[in-house]
């Protein structure tokens, strides 16, 4: 069995993100594997532990993204491939799906493709579904648990209303949520292997595709209004009135 996990490299969640001359800055915080994607690697490794599998981690990104792939290798992935090409700088979700689908085809014989639910940088959460559609494989998204049996995969999807249990024949594309289980730490053996691994780089030419045309175009970025505002005290005649006013204020903040 072969499992491909698609990962991304992002600034650490703890990073102070700011804008400088229209460019995103994250200070001296490290770039790390997207936290949700660590769960994807964990999910793949759980299946490897249970059924035996080759786990291949792939990542689109610049040369620095090798570190994210090394993390996957250190956790226990068997192979890693970096997809890197100067033409991929302004990739949108759908472009990423196109590139990933091509890479998955080139890897060949994948039974499962596993994604994290979304990245914490662009945060669109579109790529898993779009990759599935590009491949023409069933999408079992937001899986909280995975079972493989007789060439079928069965997952419990964690949705707003509870859990939906679905199954499909392999090959299939999955995205996973945290209930899959805490990602394992890299093992020392994994660390040794990862630090010595040579990670091949595939260009668009290697994938035999041209650069995807962006369908979503960014016009601007801006920092949210500063939260240094003083506290606004809500007052009213009755506690009900205060509560109702406060609810309106909170809803207007659009945080819910």
């Amino acid at each position, binding site marked *: 069995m072969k499992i491909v996990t698609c990962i991304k490299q992002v600034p650490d969640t703890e990073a102070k993100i700011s804008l400088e001359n229209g460019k995103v800055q994250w200070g001296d915080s490290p770039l790390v594997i997207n936290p949700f994607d660590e769960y994807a690697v964990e999910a793949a490794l759980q299946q490897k532990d249970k059924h035996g599998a080759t786990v291949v981690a792939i990542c689109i990104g610049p040369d620095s993204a090798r570190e994210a792939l090394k993390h996957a290798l250190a956790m226990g992935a068997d192979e890693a491939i970096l997809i890197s090409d100067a033409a991929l700088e302004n990739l949108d979700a759908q472009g990423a799906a196109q590139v990933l689908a091509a890479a998955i085809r080139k890897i060949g014989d994948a039974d499962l493709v596993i994604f994290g639910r979304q990245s914490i940088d662009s945060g669109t959460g*579109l790529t898993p579904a779009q990759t599935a559609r590009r491949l023409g494989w069933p999408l079992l998204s937001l899986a909280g648990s995975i079972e493989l049996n007789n060439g079928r995969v069965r997952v419990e999807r964690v949705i707003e209303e509870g*859990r939906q249990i679905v199954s499909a024949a392999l090959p299939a594309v999955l995205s996973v949520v945290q209930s899959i289980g805490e990602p394992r730490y890299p093992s020392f053996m994994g660390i040794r292997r990862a630090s010595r691994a040579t990670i091949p780089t595939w260009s668009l030419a290697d994938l035999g595709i041209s650069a995807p045309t962006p369908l979503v175009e960014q016009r601007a970025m801006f920092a949210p209004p500063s939260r240094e505002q003083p506290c606004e005290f809500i007052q009213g005649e009755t506690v009900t009135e205060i509560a109702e006013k406060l609810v309106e204020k909170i809803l207007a903040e659009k945080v819910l």
Partner: protein
Amino acid sequence: MKTLVYIDHFKGEVQPASWEAIGVARNWGTVQAVILGASGEKLVKQAYEYGADEVFFCDDSSLDDYRADLFASTLGALATAQSPDVILFPTTTRGRELAAILAVDLNSGVLADVTALELEGTLLVATRPIYEGKLFEKVVCRGRPQIATLRPRAFPRPPRDESRNGSAIRIEKQGESAIQVEGYAVSESRVSLTDAGVIVAGGRGVTNNPAMAGADEATIARKGFELIGELASVLGGAVGASRAVVDAGYIPYSHQVGQTGKTVAPDLYIACGISGAIQHISGIRGAKLVVAINKDPEAPIFKVARYGVVGDLFQVVPALTEAFRKRLGK
């Protein structure tokens, strides 16, 4: 301008953000709504009431259970036939992936999880959070139709006009599904603090209720956390606590927020009866909106709160629960 709105529901239970999408689309012109699955039939009238001009409906039994591929194919066929300028989805688990798949099928882009929209002619200029809300971007879609998913509660719910009505325009389901639905399970609703979008937390104030004079602290605290729990549950959130009440043994350590407890980053943090020791404040640095309820107007928590109520949590919290319940229709 014509907009197609996907009305997201589960066994007839609608995701209210679908109505918000209708509200947005109404400002632009014609609104077509689409409802898939027989259990959604009762929503047809509601869609009209919220402002849809036409409501498409498919009650094919294969759509009784949500399956991404089949739903997307059916929507794709409708979109091709109707050629709307815009397709809107609520940002729900289903809305997000249907938008994604539809974009592939129609070769267009998705403006995902939008919190604000402007219109330039027929071009949508969408504002959406990136880097976990630490920044925002403005994006436009270069494909047609433009597809967007709207963050729940980012747009107002349109007024409901019960006199409006119309008929369900029947459509056929398209394609087959490779996915088999085997059943459902209710989720254990335990929300962990670190993942919680909303946290309602209690501090020393939970032990101070003049109305319960004479009762021991533990009993008062239990009542306090009961009220806090009700508010958290209406908001789908988790219950947090300050060190003081954890140390006093009124709530388990796993609820503690603060430097040696948990660092949390909810969208909304409601501090009830928490004075705001510095370590507590640094533990909630990641919170997007802090609301504080405290008897002491000088409490340091008000320095980091956006909104504050000076009052007794035993009165304010239940009133707030009630007000949210009413306003959110729960």
